[in-house]
């Protein structure tokens, strides 16, 4: 009671002051403006990056968009067959692998950790390790992929193949998926769960009918952000079979047989490669910029899908 009284007094005092002096809240104003400045700075940097890269790649993107998206790796930048088709197919399949492997495993692990796992030393140790794994440099995952999937599981993955690359990147984003899914599940109101138990639901029914639908938007945002990170990785791919010079075959998006064929290409790798090639043939700088724009559009499309799905689930949640 005494405390409430005190708060009331203070509020009163502030009110009286405000009415008497009619002074504006200068400090609040400064705070608000400085926040706006931080927003503008980050937006400005983003805008400069995008404008620069779009301007550099404009010639190719407007001149021959179809040829560029349908073309292959070439040795000369003025080759009309130069393009990113092989790399787009590679990145598409890597994204599929990440979605099929990392999402179910990661979300499953998160549900177990949040809903089933006993809170003891062992689970705390596991959680700590998952958090550490999220910070491991990507090249280390590349070495893991080289050792495990390329060398020891060659029979399954086909050695240096898109399958090895996809599994490696799925493992790379797995800790991030687990952590974001855990956060989303933790944010489900306790009342919802208790309500479900109250009407006689089993734990599994409660999770399926209450926890997952409520956490779905958060899980989705986290998983797709982690996928964006995964498909932007170049370093681990170089270890598990991305080639730098020329890829003999030009597979279509749905040539399943080529998933474990030797060697592959991916968007981040082709960007690195073309930036390096610009040393010997400056025209590759333009091609690299155009490839960056293509990768950006790919990521934006993926994120747009995520936003669409999230809104869909949010509406469902009501």
């Amino acid at each position: 009671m005494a405390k409430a009284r005190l708060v009331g007094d203070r509020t009163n005092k502030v009110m009286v002051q405000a009415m008497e002096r009619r002074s504006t809240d200068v400090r609040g104003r400064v705070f608000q403006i400085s926040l706006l400045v931080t927003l503008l700075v980050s937006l400005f940097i983003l805008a400069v990056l995008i404008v620069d890269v779009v301007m550099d790649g404009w010639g190719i993107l407007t001149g021959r968009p179809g040829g560029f998206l349908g073309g292959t790796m070439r040795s000369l930048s003025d080759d009309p067959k130069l393009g990113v088709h092989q790399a787009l197919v590679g990145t598409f399949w890597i994204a599929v692998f990440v979605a099929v492997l990392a999402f179910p495993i990661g979300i499953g692990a998160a549900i177990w950790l949040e809903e089933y796992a006993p809170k003891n030393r062992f689970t705390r140790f596991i959680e700590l390790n998952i958090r550490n794994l999220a910070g491991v440099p990507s090249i280390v995952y590349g070495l893991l992929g080289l050792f495990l999937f390329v060398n020891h599981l060659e029979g399954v993955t086909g050695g240096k193949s898109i399958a090895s690359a996809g599994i490696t990147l799925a493992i790379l984003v797995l800790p991030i998926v687990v952590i974001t899914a855990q956060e989303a599940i933790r944010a489900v109101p306790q009342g919802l769960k208790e309500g479900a138990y109250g009407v006689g639901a089993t734990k599994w029914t409660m999770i399926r009918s209450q926890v997952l639908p409520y956490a779905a938007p958060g899980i989705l945002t986290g998983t797709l952000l982690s996928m964006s990170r995964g498909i932007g990785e170049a370093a681990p791919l170089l270890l598990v079979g991305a080639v730098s010079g020329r890829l003999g075959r030009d597979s279509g998006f749905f040539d399943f047989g080529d998933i474990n064929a030797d060697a592959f290409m991916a968007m981040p790798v082709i960007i690195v490669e073309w930036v390096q090639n610009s040393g010997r043939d400056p025209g590759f700088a333009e091609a690299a910029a155009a490839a960056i724009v293509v990768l950006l559009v790919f990521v934006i499309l993926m994120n747009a899908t995520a936003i669409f799905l999230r809104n869909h689930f949010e509406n469902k949640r009501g």
Partner: protein
Amino acid sequence: MRLQKLLVLIIGLITTFALVAAACGNDDDDGAAAPSTSEQQSSGSDAQPAPAGTVSGSVTISGSSTVEPISVRVAELFEDVQPDVAVTVDGPGTGDGFKLFCAGETDISDASRQIKDSEAEDCAESGVEWVELRVGIDGIAVMTGESNPVECVTFNDIYGLVGPESTGFGSWSDAGSLGLATSDLPDADLDIYGPGEESGTFDSFIEIVLEDIADERGQDATTRPDYNANADDNVIIQGIQSSDTSFGWVGFAFAANASGVKLLDVDGGDGCVGANANTIASGEYPVSRSLYIYVNKAKAEASPAVSAYVDFYMSDEGLGTAVADVGYVNLTDEAKGATRANWAGR
């Protein structure tokens, strides 16, 4: 209130941008699907009326990133003749390439140096027999401004001007202060222009000129960091033109056509030699090195695709056109003949 409206406006703009970008992306994708499928169809129909003697199969090449563009260019020209041969080229480096080659994992190994004894032993152990083919020359021109009195530089001079220990040197004569035996260089402003780290010419220059001296002196094999690095050879040439006492280097094929610069003679221990197509092709000019491919004999025997590819490599389109296309110096006719004889007599 106003600030809030502004925030709403900014967020709205971003969303609009994202949507527009996404919409454009859709258009791009629609555009992509059509030409890529039609291209596949057309390449399929190309294959049908192909002349007799066509081969199919795959060729796997790895090795030097310096030689990589030549092998890729040869593969592109070869594709017009033999569209059913899939040539894959990777460039992890000469050493890594030989590891794969001697383990029998690749058909051909690109190399910017000759095979080392230890690598040859690895090949012998695993029973990989090879034939060495010299395919082109990587030459680097060392240049200065037209009216610079300096005519010739030694490797020591170059190390003193641009080596790792020369950081901060602003005058040509500073090169003598490292205790190396150098030529008598003038006390004149030193403006350096060269390729950046992303360039193969940067690596080649270090490996040919700087590495040995740096190793002897216990330094990292690299250049000084404080020079005007540019990826575009044109910009490097412009920089060298802009000052009478500039210093710089680019690939020879590019420098040969440049005006307003002076190509310096280089003394690699056997006297001053000027850079021209003859001295580079003969190996007299010291800032150059031969480029090789190593072919696995058994694989060339077993696979018509591999032997057809190397046959094409040995043609004028390979040793001549492809090598020049990607900026390297052609072998002399005599040396081309020797390479072809090596291949024929495998």
